[in-house]
């Protein structure tokens, strides 16, 4: 008894115009990727050593094709671009991508426009993990020192809010709002402990601690890239695959179950993947706020709330956003302004402006 509604009308025209409507959304993703490629050259050209915008691409291309310059100036430029600036640029793009995809998925599955990796405490775990080493010399793996100790601490503590959320939802019937509030509770606890430990820290270490709390992509090297890359691939593949389910989870749970989607199970599964990927990203950068919140909302203005397009568009836009923010951070703060300051300083007002100006309601 299938196919009650299969042959009733001729819908060729409608299906064609629906496909056109989808290709407009895909176009937005392409634009963001192209603008990111522009940002890549910009980011690589910025810094003390004088390297041109076009020159950046040439140096990268020459290095990839094995055409590395042999003259002393050329060789040094290659070293600066390839070893210092390029990993930072690639890292910035991927971290922005992970945070934005995490934010987009969380907003939908928790049905709340305020949900993102920052507000649910995932990112602030990184700040706490860092200060634990800087202030107390404490690392969860005792044999590690310095940067590695910070990264491990940051990774583990970024996962704590999600573990708390899962614990709460197992212990009692947790609504999405309870889950967000649990994350928020952990975030405030983390922030308080972080502030307290800042007071105990050696004043000379304050700057490092501060960087981890605001978030900086400056310390990303090639060593970090494989981890961030794995997180990027997991985030993209999993969330794209889940996009339709994420749409369904954004409705009420009864409807989701009636359409055949076990809402509670999928909500936790998606949350865990967000937590792991975000933890991998922020453990190398510290707490970067606002990208996860801002990028999906800005993207909704262009592609709507359909996660089949919101997820890839947020990915491209989030990566682009963090890359441009880091360009600004590099340009105005030669001594190493953390990118987190820029995302908040630029993102906040931009967000407000769009919120006031835009007529269409993108969320209720």
């Amino acid at each position, binding site marked *: 008894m299938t196919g009650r509604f*299969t042959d009733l009308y001729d819908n060729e025209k409608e299906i064609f115009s629906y496909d056109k409507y989808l290709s407009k959304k895909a176009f937005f993703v392409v634009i963001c990727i192209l603008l990111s490629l522009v940002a890549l050259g910009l980011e690589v050209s910025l810094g003390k050593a004088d390297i041109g915008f076009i020159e950046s691409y040439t140096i990268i291309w020459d290095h990839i094709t094995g055409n590395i310059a042999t003259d002393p100036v050329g060789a040094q430029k290659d070293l600066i671009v390839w070893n210092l600036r390029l990993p930072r640029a690639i890292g910035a793009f991927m971290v922005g991508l992970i945070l934005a995809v995490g934010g987009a998925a969380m907003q939908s599955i928790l049905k709340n426009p305020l949900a993102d990796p920052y507000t649910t405490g995932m990112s602030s775990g990184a700040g706490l993990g860092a200060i634990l080493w800087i202030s107390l010399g404490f690392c969860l793996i005792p044999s590690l020192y310095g940067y590695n100790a910070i990264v491990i601490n940051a990774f583990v503590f970024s996962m704590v809010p999600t573990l708390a959320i899962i614990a709460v939802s197992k212990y009692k019937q947790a609504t999405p709002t309870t889950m967000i509030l649990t994350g928020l509770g952990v975030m405030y606890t983390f922030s308080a402990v972080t502030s307290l430990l800042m007071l105990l820290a050696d004043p000379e270490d304050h700057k490092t601690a501060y960087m981890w709390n605001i978030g900086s992509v400056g310390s990303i090297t090639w060593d970090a890239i494989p981890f961030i890359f794995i997180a990027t691939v997991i985030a993209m593949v999993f969330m794209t695959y889940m996009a339709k389910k994420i749409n369904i989870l954004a409705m009420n749970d009864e409807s989701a179950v009636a359409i055949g989607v076990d809402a509670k199970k999928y909500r936790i599964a998606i949350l865990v993947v967000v937590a792991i990927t975000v933890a991998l990203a922020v453990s190398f950068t510290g707490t970067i706020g606002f990208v996860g919140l801002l990028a999906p909302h800005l993207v909704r203005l262009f592609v*709507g709330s359909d996660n089949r397009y919101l997820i890839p568009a947020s990915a491209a836009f989030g990566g682009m956003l963090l890359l441009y923010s880091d360009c600004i951070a590099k340009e105005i703060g030669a001594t190493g302004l953390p990118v987190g300051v820029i995302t908040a300083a630029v993102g906040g007002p931009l967000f407000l402006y769009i919120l006031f100006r835009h007529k269409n309601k993108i969320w209720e």
Partner: protein
Amino acid sequence: MHIKIDDIDFSYSNAPVLNDITLDLEGPQFVTILGPNGVGKSTLIHCINKVLKPTRGSVMVDEINIDDIKLKDMAKKIGYVPYASTDSFPLTVIDTVLMGRSPHSGWRSTDEDLNIVYNVLKMLHIDDLAMRSFNELSAGQHQKVMLARGLVQDPEILLLDEPTSNLDIKHQLEVTYILKDLARSHNLLVIMISHDINIASKFSDKIILLRGGTIFSIGTPQEVITEKNIKEVYGVESNIIDVDGHPHVILKRPCDESV
């Protein structure tokens, strides 16, 4: 299409909602569940489509215990139209309805899915709304979109939770007429929760009247809609008159008040 409910109970923590419900519904027909607020109407529907699990007893759909049917397979058999609500992140009408195809389609939506969605939108005369945002619509349009989403699941059984509650009289009649017509022309078993006794009486093949979590009366409108039943279940004095062969309730006053 056969739903067989065998002696189920349901309680939320310690508050019993349903007691000893036994019910057998088979074949295409239009069934209405009536009863006062909080009597367990939605709970009963949710026990049928696996949103809730009965604390005792069993529910069989087409002779299979629903415990043994996967959610996705349930969704192919039983469609559900929720009580009207808005979403936090509204999609367009077309994308909202397309979600109903989810149990049948994989990662991507196919042209076949789109074709079915447009067919149902056209059948309900809402194809002009396809590209509008779901939350911009009126209550009547909302309800039709939700109905469309339930229908594109291509179910044999359709459950509806107060589909006419927010609608004006014209839309109430229109939506109920569509449901009645679907049951007949598309061979569906339609089970609807309603608060409107007269509309239920006019259109239903069968009425289930609930009181205190149990089935108080079940049968044709003539059998169920009586002055005595209305008084005992709703606590309201009424006159029942006959309109075109259907009982029609004229409300008088609450029994226990000195009005």
